[in-house]
């Protein structure tokens, strides 16, 4: 892929997008004007209505005789207006029917039913039960009920205090136990909690709506306007085309989302301030920036999905019909934040869309663990890559591009011709599938249940080796070529030997350099040592050999050979190393494993033999296991002279494995 071409396409698409009035209106004008207007208008109306309800005197019907003192107090307290005085009906049902008639006719807001002996009960310092007959579906009736109830509570408390005073009883006489609540959450935290539940759905919705128009315009719109054929005549690779358009949609979604969030934040904070509740939205510039960073993975994934569907559609109209189901697919998992008990956790971190929603909530509330933020970001980058791979495939499908009638078969069908090694797209897709399979699969391989050796066997053979072999078979590629099943040359073998003996030093050096930058890395390494430490010789051998076979089959097999078909060796080596590193899902280990992956990829590609990757990997893991059990070895490996010797051997090895020009 040529970045100059991607940049050219991106630049042109951005200019066209910004010259499109519809898109500009949806991205900027709508949020900047509409949100403040809507929220402020709604806030004003709500506040005015609430204030009005607080001052309106409830109109009541009284069934039976209300004690004079109580009526006077209620009138003084809330301006109670008696609109009807009626004899007590013979049955409660008759009272309810009569009250409903009066409330429905808007004659009264509620009715109060009093017992016949109310006065006598009060005189004897007894209690009087008033029945409030109101309609909960009527704002007015409900409001009147709330005001009467509140006033009655106050009057009742005063009456109780008077009775206690008369009888000289202590304050707590009528209330032996009392729970005094003190909320530890600050008003800002409470505000963040409420915002964190609602905001993710809004943010994801906004990203989709802001990316929607550009995505359709750049794909289905281009087909409809007839410019796609012009573009297809230019020497541009599908992935370059897709990447240029994709960046445009990402930028449009992010700009739109930022404009929406700013406008919404301003309007919401004004509204909350107007309501005067004990809540703070807690929106500040740093919070806004953190939130903006948190929505980048969402924009990356959703833009890829939007672009994929846009490409698939034959016309603007057809694209819009695909977007409605997409919106539903996005919004339902996005509502994960509204489900009680669902939080960002290892088990939800890879669930598409829901993980984004939970991430945004976690970031707003300040509760998202750094490790899981990283996992969610990696997962979404991987999903976005898969969606882009799909889009690029669609861009090569003539039935779709030329608006043919049977596009589904062309896009989803298997390749008609068998290939020697996987395509780059196939390799990317495999990496994404492997990430999900290995992540969730490893949760089931609990060492307490299956033992340490069992866990290693399940992980390496079941979750790495088996998927790699099955994927290669399903892709109808040559197993020998895909997995580089051949012996190296003599010179290559000498190079592999040097790298096997010294390659560990590269990882050691990188780890030493990075350790101070990652505070959690040491704890992670100790946890790993605790897990593997109790293992016997069998476990040590398994740790050394199983990943050297299974992980190499995945990353120096399917991924490396697939990416090598991009025509650029650097893409193959860096790409396979990154895929290998990212699988470790812990920032420190991602970096150290990626660097080791570079070495493994280079050696395998240059020698043309998987033995290179397997032997260097086995030696690296084996040495770590020996060091874990033998402190002397650990000390020796950590010695600068040993590291220098390892690095020197690595340098010689790299020179030896380097393929000489033909």
């Amino acid at each position, binding site marked *: 892929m040529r970045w100059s071409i991607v940049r050219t396409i991106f630049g042109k698409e951005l200019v066209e997008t910004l010259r499109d009035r519809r898109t500009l209106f949806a991205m900027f004008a709508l949020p900047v004007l509409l949100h403040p207007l809507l929220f402020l208008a709604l806030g004003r109306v709500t506040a005015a209505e609430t204030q009005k309800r607080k001052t309106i005197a409830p109109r009541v019907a009284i069934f039976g005789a209300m004690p004079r003192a109580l009526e006077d107090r209620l009138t003084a307290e809330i301006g109670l207006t008696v609109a009807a005085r009626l004899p007590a009906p013979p049955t409660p049902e008759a009272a309810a029917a009569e009250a409903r008639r009066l409330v429905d006719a808007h004659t009264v807001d509620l009715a109060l039913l009093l017992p016949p002996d109310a006065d006598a009960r009060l005189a004897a310092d007894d209690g009087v039960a008033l029945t409030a007959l109101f309609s909960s579906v009527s704002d007015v009736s409900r409001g009147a009920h709330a005001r009467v109830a509140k006033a009655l509570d106050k009057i009742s408390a005063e009456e109780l205090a008077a009775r206690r005073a008369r009888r000289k009883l202590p304050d707590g006489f009528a209330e032996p136990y009392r729970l005094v609540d003190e909320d530890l959450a600050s008003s800002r935290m409470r505000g963040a909690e409420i915002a964190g539940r609602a905001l993710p759905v809004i943010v994801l919705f906004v990203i989709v709506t802001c990316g929607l128009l550009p995505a359709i315009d750049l794909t289905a719109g281009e087909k409809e306007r007839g410019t796609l054929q*012009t573009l297809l005549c230019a*020497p541009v690779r599908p992935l370059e085309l897709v990447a240029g358009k994709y960046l445009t949609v990402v930028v449009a979604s992010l700009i739109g989302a930022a404009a929406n969030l700013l406008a919404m934040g301003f309007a919401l904070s004004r509204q909350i301030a107007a309501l005067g509740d004990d809540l703070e939205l807690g929106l500040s510039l740093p919070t806004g920036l953190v939130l903006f960073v948190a929505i980048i993975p969402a924009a990356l994934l959703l833009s890829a999905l939007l672009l994929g569907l846009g490409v698939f559609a034959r016309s603007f109209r057809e694209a819009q019909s695909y977007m409605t189901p997409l919106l539903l697919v996005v919004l339902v998992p996005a509502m994960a934040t509204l489900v009680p008990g669902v939080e960002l956790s290892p088990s939800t971190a890879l669930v598409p869309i829901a993980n984004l929603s939970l991430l945004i909530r976690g970031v707003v509330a300040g509760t998202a663990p750094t490790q899981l933020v990283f996992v969610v970001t990696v997962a979404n980058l991987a999903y976005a890559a898969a969606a882009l791979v799909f889009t690029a495939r669609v861009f090569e499908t*003539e039935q779709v591009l030329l608006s043919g009638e049977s596009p589904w078969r062309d896009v989803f069908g298997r390749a008609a011709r068998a290939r020697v090694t996987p395509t780059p797209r196939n390799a990317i897709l495999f990496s994404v599938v492997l990430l999900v399979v290995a992540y969730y699969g490893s949760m089931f391989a609990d060492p307490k249940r299956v033992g340490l050796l069992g866990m290693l066997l399940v992980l390496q053979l079941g979750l790495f080796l088996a998927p790699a072999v099955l994927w290669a078979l399903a892709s109808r590629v040559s197993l020998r070529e895909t997995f580089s099943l051949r012996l190296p040359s003599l010179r290559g073998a000498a190079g592999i030997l040097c790298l096997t003996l010294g390659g560990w030093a590269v990882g050691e050096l990188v780890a030493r350099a990075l350790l101070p930058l990652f505070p959690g890395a040491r704890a992670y390494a100790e946890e790993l040592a605790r897990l593997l430490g109790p293992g016997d010789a069998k476990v040590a051998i398994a740790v050394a050999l199983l990943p050297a076979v299974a992980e190499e089959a995945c990353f120096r097999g399917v991924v490396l050979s697939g990416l090598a078909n991009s025509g650029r060796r650097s893409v193959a080596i860096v790409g396979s190393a990154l895929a290998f590193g990212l699988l470790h899902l812990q920032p420190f280990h991602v970096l150290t494993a990626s660097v080791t992956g570079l070495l493994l990829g280079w050696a395998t590609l240059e020698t043309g033999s998987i033995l290179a990757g397997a032997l260097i990997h086995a030696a690296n893991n084996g040495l770590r296991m020996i060091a874990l059990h033998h402190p002397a070895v650990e000390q020796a490996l950590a010695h600068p002279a040993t590291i220098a010797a390892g690095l020197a051997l690595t340098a010689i090895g790299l020179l030896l494995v380097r393929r000489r020009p033909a």
Partner: protein
Amino acid sequence: MLEAIALTKRYGAVHAAADISFRVGAGEVVGLLGPNGAGKTTILRMLAGILTPTGGRALVDGVDATTDPFEVKRRLGFLSGDTALYQRLTPREVLRYFGRLHGLADDAIAARTARLVDELRMGDFADRRCAALSAGQKQKTNIARAFLHDPPALILDEPTTALDIVTGRFLLDAISRARAAGKAILFSTHVMGEAEALCDRVLLLHGGRIVDEGAPAELCARAGVRTLGEAFLRRIDALS
């Protein structure tokens, strides 16, 4: 320069193009003539690397369009009557965009654009957005786009469709100049007069097959008629 070898395209049981073979040399204009649905556009798209043939090979400057469509597109200028332009860009921006996609340096793009704007008399509208241009002005922009990277071969698919007589003449003159510059030109049309005036050879297409070929005068002589249109109709009648 442009070569089709047993080129075939099938959609299910339908043959859009069947066993098509021909060659267009440097400095030659070859016409692809046929009624609507004869398979002209399908053949041109296969040669341009946009459609994958079901069988046979399409070569441009010796490069196979199926195995290396990317290289083929670098060596080809493609223009059709219904080619659209980006409505929100100006002709000058369109040329800069396609120049960059073809890997030209910015100063080369600027120099070639200036020459094409002058040659094709685009000065009045080169900085107006394409949405505001007439059909003729748009087609001039498209000609400039197809010629910008100075390709050795040109494929022109009914390029005079919807053009007035003045702009159509202008385009035919541009094609003549390209032939003089040594380009291989494959030209599809259903306007027989254009083919007669411009083509060194013509291929008559019917039902996805080549039914006759030769210089316009040869075809007329063989059919015993005076115009290419009559020769074409007589050949179709004979087949029916």
